[in-house]
C-alpha cells in the first residue's frame, strides 16, 4: 500500500498500538532549552524516576540568555537561574549540555541541524513549538508541553494520535527578492493560521527540491504558524550533502548505510493526503505582515487591508483591533511606513545563508538615523563562521549591532524588548500582540527586507533598493 513520508516515519516508530487511534511512539531525540527543560527535568526528579535514555537527550540555553556583546550566563538575572538549573540538572542526569560561548550553543532549532543531531527518519521533540523546523531534514519533529516532555524523559516515548496529512507543493522559480520566508508567509496568508491544525504538512514541488537545506529549515520553521503539528521535507542529495561531516552524523561506511536507509524516505506515488495546496512560486512577491497574526500578510507593494473587506463579523473585529494595535490605517500603502527597530535573527532566519544575504545588501549602506538594528546569529557556530567571512565587520560598518547567539528579540524573555509603540521589522516568526515586548509592533519579513527597512528607515520593497 502506498504510504506518505510521514506515515513511513510514524509506522517505524510505533512501539505499541494503544487502541482508539492512539500509538505509543518512540522518540529518537529530545532537546531541552532553558525555559522548558528545567520544569520537565524537575517533574521527573519529583517523581523519583530515572531519565530513561540520557544519551538521546541534549540541552542548551537560548531563550532567557542575553544576546549583549560580551554577555555571560549571569547578564540577564532571571535567565541565570534557569541557566543554572538546566546546567545542574543536565549534569546530574548525564545529559549533554552545550555551554554558553562553546560550539553547540545556539537557538535549539539552529544547533540541532547544524550538529547533525537531527537526521532523516528520526522522531524529535522539544518543549518548543518551533521544533517543526527540524522536519526540513526529513524528520518527524514537533513541539510539546512540559508534561509530554517529562513523559518522554521517563519513557523515551509519547502517547500520540496520528495527525491528518496535508501536502503543499511550491512549484516554479522565485522572482527577484523572493526568499523562502516570503514563500511561507505567502502560504500562511493564503490559507490561514489554522489551515493546517491537526495536520502534518509535507512540503514538495520543484522550488523545494531546488532549495538549499537552510531555506527548507525556514519553510518548516513556520509550519506551526499554519497551525501544523509538524512540517517535513523528503530527504534528498541536498540533505545528504548537508549532513555529511556534521559532528553527530554517522561517518564513513556507517554514513553510506544511513543514506541507503534515508533514500527510502519519500512519499510513494498515489499515496493520499487529506488536503493538497499548490503555490505558484513565480507569482509570489516580497511579503510582510501588517497585523498581529502570521496570516495577516500582504505584498510589500500593496495597501493595508480594510476591516470592511471581511464578511465575517469576528474577522472584521480582529482586523480592526490589529490595525489599531499596529497603528496603521486601512488603505495606506505599507511601503514607506516608518520603522524604529530591525531584528535579524531567530530560529526562522539566523543561519549563515541568511546573514550572508543580509550582509550583501548592507555592504556599503548605512542604517537610517533613529533606527536601532540588531543582528543576532543563530548559534555560536554561525557567529564564528560569519566572523571568519567578515560579515560582522560589514554589519558593524553599516551601523548594525552584532550580538551573541540566542532567541533575543523574537521571544523577549531575556530582558531584550522592542519598546511599547515602536515599530519593528523582524525576521522572526510571530507578530503576536506583545510578542517582542508589551505594545511592540512587529512586521515579519525576510532578512533582505529587514535590511531594506533598516537602511531606508521604512518598510521598503527590496527590489527597489
Amino acid at each position: 500500500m502506498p504510504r506518505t513520508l510521514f506515515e513511513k516515519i510514524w509506522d517505524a516508530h510505533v512501539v505499541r498500538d494503544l487502541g482508539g487511534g492512539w500509538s505509543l511512539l518512540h522518540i529518537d531525540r529530545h532537546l531541552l532549552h532553558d525555559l522548558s527543560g528545567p520544569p520537565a527535568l524537575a517533574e521527573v526528579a519529583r517523581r523519583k524516576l530515572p531519565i530513561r535514555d540520557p544519551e538521546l537527550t541534549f540541552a542548551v540555553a537560548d531563550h532567557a540568555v542575553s544576546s549583549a556583546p560580551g554577555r555571560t550566563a549571569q547578564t540577564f538575572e532571571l535567565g541565570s537561574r534557569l541557566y543554572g538549573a538546566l546546567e545542574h540538572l543536565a549534569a546530574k542526569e548525564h545529559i549533554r549540555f552545550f555551554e554558553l560561548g562553546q560550539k553547540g550553543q545556539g537557538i535549539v532549532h539552529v544547533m540541532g541541524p547544524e550538529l547533525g543531531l537531527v537526521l532523516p527518519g528520526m522522531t524529535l521533540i522539544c518543549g518548543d513549538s518551533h521544533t517543526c523546523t527540524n522536519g526540513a531534514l526529513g524528520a518527524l519533529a514537533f513541539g510539546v508541553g512540559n508534561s509530554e516532555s517529562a513523559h518522554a524523559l521517563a519513557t523515551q516515548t509519547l502517547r500520540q494520535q496520528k495527525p491528518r496529512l496535508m501536502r503543499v507543493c511550491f512549484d516554479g522559480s522565485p522572482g527577484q527578492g523572493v526568499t523562502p520566508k516570503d514563500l511561507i508567509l505567502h502560504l500562511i496568508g493564503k490559507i490561514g493560521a489554522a489551515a493546517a491544525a491537526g495536520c502534518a504538512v509535507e512540503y514538495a514541488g520543484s522550488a523545494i527540491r531546488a532549495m538549499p537545506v537552510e531555506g527548507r529549515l525556514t519553510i518548516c520553521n513556520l509550519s506551526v504558524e499554519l497551525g501544523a503539528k509538524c512540517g517535513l521535507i523528503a530527504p534528498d542529495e541536498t540533505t545528504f550533502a548537508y549532513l555529511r561531516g556534521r559532528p553527530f552524523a554517522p561517518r564513513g561506511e556507517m554514513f553510506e548505510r544511513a543514506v541507503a536507509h534515508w533514500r527510502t524516505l519519500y512519499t510513494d506515488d498515489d499515496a493520499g493526503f487529506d488536503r493538497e495546496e499548490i503555490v505558484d512560486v513565480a507569482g509570489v512577491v516580497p511579503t510582510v505582515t501588517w497585523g498581529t497574526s502570521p496570516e495577516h500578510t500582504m505584498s510589500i507593494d500593496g495597501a493595508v487591508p480594510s476591516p470592511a473587506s471581511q464578511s465575517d463579523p469576528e474577522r472584521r473585529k480582529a482586523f480592526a483591533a490589529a490595525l489599531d494595535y499596529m497603528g496603521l490605517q486601512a488603505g495606506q500603502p505599507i511601503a514607506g511606513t516608518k520603522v524604529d527597530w530591525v531584528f535579524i535573527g531567530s530560529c526562522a532566519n539566523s543561519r549563515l545563508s541568511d546573514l550572508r544575504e543580509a550582509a550583501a545588501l548592507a555592504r556599503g549602506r548605512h542604517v537610517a538615523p533613529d533606527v536601532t538594528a540588531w543582528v543576532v546569529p543563530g548559534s555560536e557556530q554561525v557567529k564564528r563562521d560569519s566572523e571568519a567571512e567578515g560579515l560582522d565587520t560589514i554589519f558593524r560598518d553599516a551601523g548594525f549591532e552584532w550580538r551573541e547567539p540566542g532567541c533575543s528579540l523574537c521571544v523577549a524573555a531575556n530582558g531584550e524588548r522592542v519598546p511599547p509603540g515602536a515599530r519593528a521589522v523582524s525576521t522572526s516568526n510571530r507578530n503576536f500582540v506583545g510578542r517582542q515586548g508589551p505594545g511592540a509592533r512587529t512586521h515579519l519579513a525576510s532578512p533582505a527586507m529587514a535590511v531594506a527597512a533598516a537602511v531606508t528607515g521604512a518598510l521598503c520593497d527590496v527590489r527597489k533598493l
Partner: protein
Amino acid sequence: MQPFTSVTGAAVPHLQANIDTDVIIRIERLTGGADLGRYAFEALRTLPDGSPNPDSVFNEPRFARAPILLAGRNFGCGSSREGAVTALMGMGFRAVIALSFGDIFFANCFRNGLLPVVLPDATLETLAAEARMGDFTVDLRSQTILTPSRNSVSFDVDALQRQGLLEGLDEIGLTLKCAGDIERWQSADRVARPWVWQTVRVVV
C-alpha cells in the same frame, strides 16, 4: 492531575480568532515563578498604564472567577508553553469551548485537567448569546453543555482523552507498564539504525 467531571458557572464570551499563548500568558511571567493566574490575558485585561481595561469582557464583575471560556477559531495557537493552561486554570477556568484550538495547547489541556471542547460556529454563537443570562454546566460524563435557558448541547471528545480527564490518569505511570515493549523496540532499533544511538563520544 486534577480530574474533570463537570463544572457549573458563568461563561465568558471572547470569540476573537487566533488568541495565541503569548496573549494568554506573557513569556516573561514564566521566568519569574509568579502566580500565573494573575497575569492571564494581561494584554487584554489591562491598559498600557497597568489599570484595568474597562472595555475588556474579562473585567465584567459577572465574569469574575468564571470557570468557562467561550473562544473563537485557533484558540491557544503559537508557543508550546504549558503555562498558558496553568494560567487559565489559575484564573479559575476549568473548560474552554472554542471553534478550534492550537494543537499543542489542546494536548496540554488534557495533561492538566482543563477540558477543551470544540463546537461549530453557529452553536458557539448561541452559547455566547446566552453568556449574560446565567450559569452554564459542562458535563464530561454525559458530554453535554446545559445553557442558562436549559438548552442542551452535546459535544464530541476522544474516548481515551475523556477517560484520562474523568479519572485524572497518570500517563507516565501507564506508559511505564509498557517498559517491555519499549525495551524490545529499542533493541531492534540499535541493530537497524545504529547511527541513532552513537552519541556519547561525539566531539563538537
